[in-house]
């Protein structure tokens, strides 16, 4: 297949499907109790330097507790999948946790504006970046999930996004038309927040899937954080609902309100007040340091963070907002 053009930025992960198959061949399939704490999963599955993917959509259905623990464990030099990332990205920038980045959506928090601290970090030159689009990254995960070395997309063609990616423009052997080939991406570890899981890792999320079905099937290790643990029979009573089967999952962490301050579909809305406080604190690096100490480094666990943010009272308000209960 002729390569007609290609991006000039580095490819961070090996797209060889046979190396991935070798890994997956050895991955345990036993249906065993995989319950762990946030601290344990970060210690065991998220070492310095590994390549990390986060599920959800930035500030919607995100595994906040594990990200906080990554900061508290002072993880450094991670690779990061910057796919639809907003508050998750903001957090990892606050801890300067990564130094290489596949970027599709970064720095911004959608309608809330750009994160001043994420901007500072990205403009500092400390991070190696490779550009993609949201679809290109979803397609890279899909290729990995399918066990092939690349996906074909019609995105990026003719633009600087392609030039600053690691994609290649190829000619279709059937039609002669041009397409962008994007390499499969097998992250070392993915963390995905769900509504329910059993202790073996059978996981159910509701609402939109974003790229989580692909991410769970592409990542070498998968950590599921769940709003609540359910009995295995609950899963077996409605297997149609299962989003992620247990043999993909390495660890299960029960974290009620685990997507806070993000939105969790059908359960609680995002805490816009707290997210606005983040943006405000970030403007001044000194103030931001104190802010991080108060909310992340100075607390021992996620429950303590929830308490500092207003606790159950605040969470009840967010539940009302989510379910559109009239005031």
């Amino acid at each position, binding site marked *: 297949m002729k390569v007609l053009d290609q991006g000039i930025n580095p490819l961070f992960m090996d797209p060889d499907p046979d190396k991935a198959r070798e890994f997956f061949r050895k991955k345990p399939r036993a249906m065993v109790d995989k319950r762990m704490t946030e601290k344990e999963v970060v210690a065991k599955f998220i070492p310095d330097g590994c390549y990390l993917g986060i599920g959800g959509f930035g500030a919607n259905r995100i595994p906040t507790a594990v990200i906080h623990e990554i900061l508290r464990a002072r993880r450094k030099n991670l690779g990061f999948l910057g796919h639809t990332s907003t508050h998750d990205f903001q957090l990892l920038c606050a801890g300067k946790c990564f130094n290489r980045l596949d970027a599709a959506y970064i720095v911004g928090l959608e309608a809330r504006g750009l994160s001043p601290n994420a901007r500072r970090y*990205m403009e500092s030159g400390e991070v190696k970046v490779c550009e993609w689009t*949201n*679809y290109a990254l979803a*397609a890279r995960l899909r290729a990995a999930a399918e066990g092939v070395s690349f996906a074909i997309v019609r995105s990026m063609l003719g633009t600087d996004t392609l030039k600053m990616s690691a994609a290649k423009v190829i000619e279709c052997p059937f039609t002669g038309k041009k397409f962008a080939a994007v390499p499969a991406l097998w992250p070392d570890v993915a963390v995905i927040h769900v509504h329910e899981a059993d202790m073996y890792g059978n996981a159910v999320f509701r609402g939109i899937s974003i790229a989580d079905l692909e991410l769970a099937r592409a990542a070498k290790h998968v950590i599921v954080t769940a709003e609540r643990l359910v009995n295995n029979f609950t899963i077996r009573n409605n297997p149609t609902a299962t989003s992620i089967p247990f043999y993909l999952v390495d660890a299960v962490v029960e974290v009620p309100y685990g997507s806070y301050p993000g939105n969790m579909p059908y359960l609680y809305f995002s805490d816009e007040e707290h997210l606005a406080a983040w943006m405000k604190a970030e403007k001044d690096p000194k103030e931001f340091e104190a802010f991080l100490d108060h909310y992340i480094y100075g607390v021992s666990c996620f429950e303590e963070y929830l308490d500092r943010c207003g606790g159950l009272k605040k969470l009840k308000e967010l539940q009302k907002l*989510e379910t559109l209960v009239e005031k």
Partner: protein
Amino acid sequence: MSSPYNMMEMMICIASRFLEDGKTVAVGTGAPCAAAMLAQKLHSPNLIILFEAGGVAPLLPQMPISVGDSRTFFRAVMAAGMNEMMTTCCRGQVDYAFLGGAQIDKYGNINSTVVGDYYKPKVRFPGSGGANDFASFCWRTMIMTVHSKARFVEKCDFITSPGYLTGAGAREAAGLPQGGPYKIITDLAVMGFDEETRAMKVESLHPGVELDKVRAETGFELLVAKDLGRTDPPTDEELRILREEVDPLRLVIGRA
């Protein structure tokens, strides 16, 4: 004579008029979503709203804050994912998409990645997100933006999402499917693109705006439509529905 309105309200009302009934539109949060909701409530009840994170045809109860928040699939017909939405666009079933960016050039190319040198950026912006995908796949893309020389530039520092690239035939040569920029709606005018050269062309001036003003706020030579028109101001009906039903909390229209 219609009642007073701000520029955000005007841009939203104008954009909504381009969204025909029975078509599909991919939107983000903010003004594009408001335009699509307004169109649904006024003249296009069967307009299908899509969100890249997976929301398909929701009955939007209020303006979403995020393209992936739960409002985007409230009473939707499907809660899908990124691959489903983008493949729907790529196979040609999405008519309109709204885009945004820090810079736009005369062929409708958009920069939402960096201002300044790529490796030493003056400002790092979010990057493509889904914008490059929409700009590549959707039949007609639209932009709503404030009109200024800093935004309407001769050359983008970085082309994140394709318009007509270098002009006639360039999209096709790059391998992009048919489609491309359709309307640029600013606080001063509505612009389209010349059929032959694919360069940006002023089509109508908003009430009280003269051509010189538009030229002064544009960093490149603008074409002017032979039948240059006047934009109809927002009607009382448009403004009422926008204010009372679409954005009662003034999340978007309050930003003007």
